[in-house]
């Protein structure tokens, strides 16, 4: 995965959280969290086309509920269907924005899948090494993991 793609996803995350949640995102690119997923909620979007991979937002329950509360403008106290949908949609928008910025690749994104549970695992495609980015946000901590194969670009098709 190229460094410019990582920057693209970080920008997408930052912009989406600021626009939809009015929430700042702070990340330390030097920190790499090897444990994936570190938190009990994972929102997964698959990427396909000129590159194959996925983007995952791993969140604590508190982060997820805070984000859902802001989006839905009501206090969410449990991880119900509405809160899960909110997390999925947030991840969908992050992935969609990143995809739109990656003009050298024609990509499709899947519908979001949200997995919950303390000991769940998220597997990337076999030849994809995910890059994990721990973040602190005004809603709470999260980790974004992105992995893409270096597929064909529009130029070398």
């Amino acid at each position, binding site marked *: 995965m190229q460094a410019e793609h990582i920057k693209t996803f970080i920008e997408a995350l930052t912009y989406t959280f600021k626009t939809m949640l009015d929430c700042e995102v702070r990340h330390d690119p030097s920190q790499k969290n090897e444990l994936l997923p570190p938190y009990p909620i994972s929102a997964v979007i698959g990427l396909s086309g000129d590159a194959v991979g996925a983007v995952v937002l791993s969140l604590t329950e508190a982060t997820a509920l805070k984000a*859902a509360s802001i*989006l839905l403008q009501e206090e969410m106290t449990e991880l119900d269907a*509405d809160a899960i949908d909110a997390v999925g*949609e947030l991840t969908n928008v992050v992935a969609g924005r990143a995809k*739109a910025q990656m003009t050298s690749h024609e990509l499709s994104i899947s*519908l979001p899948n949200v997995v919950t549970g303390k000991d769940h695992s998220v597997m990337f495609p076999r030849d994809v090494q995910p890059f994990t980015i721990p973040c602190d946000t005004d809603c709470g901590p999260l980790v974004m993991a992105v992995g893409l194969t270096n597929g064909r670009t529009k130029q070398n098709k």
Partner: protein
Amino acid sequence: MKIMVADDSSTMRTIVKRHLASIGVDDVVEAKDGDDAVEKFKLHSVDLVLTDWNMPGKTGLEVLKEIRKTDAKIPVIMITTEADKSRVMEAVEAGATNYLVKPFTAEMFKEKMEKYID
């Protein structure tokens, strides 16, 4: 004024309804996917359609094309993450009236919608 909002995300439908309410539109028909949108368009006499692109079943583009078979004039606005030029052109060529890219703030939404709301 009656507006149809088609998006498979209940969160996005809630957000859009909230923004519509803030500009005086309370009569909203919700569609949870593309097939639902096409059916509800036939059943309800709506004045404007807001539709996502990527949905289960029919996509928003397919919903737009279905609407345009019977109604060439109704405003149809795509609300979607699909922001690259080729996608926008595809929607315009299919008859989309306007385009709003996610994510958007309440202000961005109002600015886009104000010319269509009476």
